[in-house]
């Protein structure tokens, strides 16, 4: 049975590209462009993995991860980021500390994404 992966990213291009890669990789892919919508999807259906961008308007990925760890403690989380806009915080490192199982820097190759997803789903 295909695993379902929810991708949250405010960048439509990244969202679409990731969706294509994961679909090609044989996953069932759900996409939302905001954390709030992502949380709504989670409430509506079961998801095996959530991939979230960090820097997003309205509600950012860190907040989402924190909330996910609280509300869905066993849901594996993968954080992706191309870096902050104006501060030199290592967001991926922080995401990992908050509970992201796998982190991946943008831009990433198809193989790297699939490898990361597999690592996140294993165990």
């Amino acid at each position, binding site marked *: 049975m295909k695993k379902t992966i929810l991708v949250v990213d405010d960048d439509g291009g990244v969202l679409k590209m990731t969706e294509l890669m994961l679909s090609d990789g044989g996953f069932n892919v759900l996409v939302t462009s905001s954390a709030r919508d992502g949380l709504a999807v989670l409430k509506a259906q079961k998801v095996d993995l959530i991939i979230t961008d960090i820097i997003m308007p309205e509600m950012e990925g860190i907040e989402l991860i924190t909330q996910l760890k609280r509300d869905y403690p066993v849901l594996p989380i993968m954080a992706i980021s*191309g870096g*902050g806009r104006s501060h030199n915080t290592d967001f991926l490192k922080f995401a990992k500390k908050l509970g992201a199982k796998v982190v991946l820097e*943008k831009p990433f190759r198809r193989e790297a994404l699939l490898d990361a997803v597999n690592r996140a789903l294993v165990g």
Partner: protein
Amino acid sequence: MAFKLDALSIRSRVLLLISAMLLPTGGLLFYDRWETERRIEAQAMADAGSAARKIAETQSNLFDNAELVLDLIAALPSARAENAAICQRTLHALIERNPRYAALGVFAPDGNLICASRPAAGVVNPADRDWFQAALRARALAVGEYQVGVLTERPSIGAAKPVMGANGEIESIMYASLNLDWITENIEKTLSPNTEFLLVDRDGTVFSASQPDWLGRHLADHVLFQLMTSRPTGYSQELPGIDGELRRYYFYRFSTSTGDPSVYAAVGLPLAALRQEINRKVAIDFAILGAATLTIVVAGYFLSERMLVQPLRRLAAFSQAVGEGRLGQHTGLAQSADEIGKLAANLDRMSDSLLRAEQEKGRAERFRAAMLDNIADGIVACDANGEFMVVNRAMERIHDEKLVGIPRSAWPKIEVYESDGKTSIPADRLPLHRVLQGEKVSNEELVVKKRGRSRYVLVNGEEIRDHDGQRLGAVVSIREITELRKAEQALRHTQKLEAVGLLSGGLAHDFNNLLSVVIGNIDSLLIRVDDPKQKELLNEALSGALRGAELVKQMRAFARRQHLDPAAVDVAELVQDALAIWKRMLGDDVTVRCDFPEGLWRCVADATELETALLNLITNAWHAMPKGGAITIEACNDHLDAEYASHNAEVVPGPYVRISVSDTGTGIAPDLLPQVIEPFFTTKEPGQGTGLGLSMVYGFIKQSGGHFRIYSELGHGTTVHLYLPQAEQEEEEEGDPAHAPDRGMPVAVAPIADPASCTVLVVDDDEKVRRVATEALGSAGFKIVEAADATEAMAVLKQGRLIDLVVSDVAMPGAANGYDLAAQVIGQFPATRILLTTGFAESAARERARLGAKAVIITKPYRRQELVDRVHRILSE
């Protein structure tokens, strides 16, 4: 040599004064001598006159009286009596009563003695005597010459008068012998002692004289007699007398009653003797005067020494001491009540007041110097000739030498440039020159170079004029702003790097999204395309996109935004592992030497990125040595202290591992050195480098909490030091700030049983927002305290009231925002929890990382229930 009164000493002047005072006395003595001589001469004349009168009187008296006496005798019957005895008694009685006559006698016309006043010794007959003959001849009174008397047998002058009978015949001759002794005595009585006189008859025989020896002397040939007879009566002349002694003689002549000149008189005054006497007296007077003078002079000498010279010497010594600046001394003469004492007292007061003024001046000078020296600006004042009069410590520090008293010709040689540090200013346009020419210099920024060191200075200056507008000199102040300029340059540099970092960081985020889309889609397309030609084209596109990704990664590294996995790194091990690959790259022309001491600490860094950084440095070193050379990789334990940290931005004092990579290459020019870490700065040929190598290293080291230093000398080589923090212990398992106890299902919030026992401090500057929060939490049963800002909130906390939770907005006016408040609360009130609300997601993420588990951050807008739930959850933990 001209005599100068000014050149005389005081003592000489005193003695001269005394001598001058004695001069009139000497003059008086001379006058007295002259006056005495004159008086004596007058006296002599008077004496002589008086003697002459007396002589005349006596002469006249004598002869007149003689006739009378002769007539009397003639009339006496007893004398005409034949009785000689009676006659003799009568004549004797007459003689007894009339001492002018030595003898009286009566002679017969034949010369026989009839009677005499004394019995004759023998037969006496004067018939041959001139007076007898004359009397007979003249039948009248006749006076004889000087001769031995017929009766007295003593020198005398006889006078005879015939007595006529009734028929005119001569009956008898009456005779009187004049007493020459009486004449002499009588004249002598009227003369002053030592006055000589002599009476001479017309034959030149002396019949009366003051010297008995002269009686009878015949002077017919003597000059005295010649003068007596030839000169008028009253004539006087100085000439030697009979005895040869010099006298002034007065000459007189007397006539008898018959009118014939018969007697000559000379009165001689011993003027030479008198003069001698006068001179003797005068000599005595002068001797006395001389002795008195000597006494006065000696006394004057000693008294003037004691009373004038010594005090004046002390005054001179005192004035010399004062003149030489030894103030406060006293003359020691002020106790004296005289003028010198008053002068001395005044001088003592003057000395005291000068000393006080000097001390006052000294104190003022010390104050002035202390003030000047404590001014950070360099200050120099010079006179109109350019000699440095006042130089404060700061100015000497700037010039590194003593400057006071230096004339214009010896002004220190300094190179001065415009504020650009390159345009040299000629010596005559230096500020002090211009100010001395009346120009005013205001806040001019210049660069002073001395001994290879550049100082940035701000110069002010203007001329100094006195009340009359005369130029006294000029003053120039120099404020060193080197540190300020350096700090500004450093700040500009830092800001530039910061700006580049911000720019590249901001670009990186969006570029990564764009590149993600490009790379991801190409990747997806590649699996859909079978045509090798198409695959090749796609791979080309992919390669370009990946290069772009790499560039962004490097920019992020510089902007300190790359993803790092720091861990404890053994630098020696890391280098040894990579060395073989590096050596292969470098080839044989470059030797690599490594030096890692025993006991080298491990440092905290992302090992992969550290290796990349070292590779970058080695590549740079290699490129700097086109003809080959040596690269040295060293590491050591180091400690950066607070002092070092204060001069180097972003350095945290503490233990570090220092890794140094040195080459023997071309080196970098000093003015380019600060730029080498700027992104895209490169000294390499176009295409050889991106200019991001050192920027990446710099960014990586900074992001790793380390410190970067570069040192280079043109032609010698370059060394880059990387300081990385010492790894304290084995990597700790880092805590998870959002640690969740369980996995899987959402956790239900367990509300606090007794919210009223919990106090929540709500902090927000916006009253409306604050009210929403207080109402929500108040309705939930919590006790609420409010504060409008961080300061007020801290004040509430410090009042001692137990606050369980602080709910604060992040963005607040004032010195402290919500994050700062959170940090303060964490530090000072560890039991108090914090909930921050913010509208900025990114900063929230950053601050979460900073504040850790102590603070919870939620983003606005939040729902009312969400806030209440959060508070419940936090307080129940």
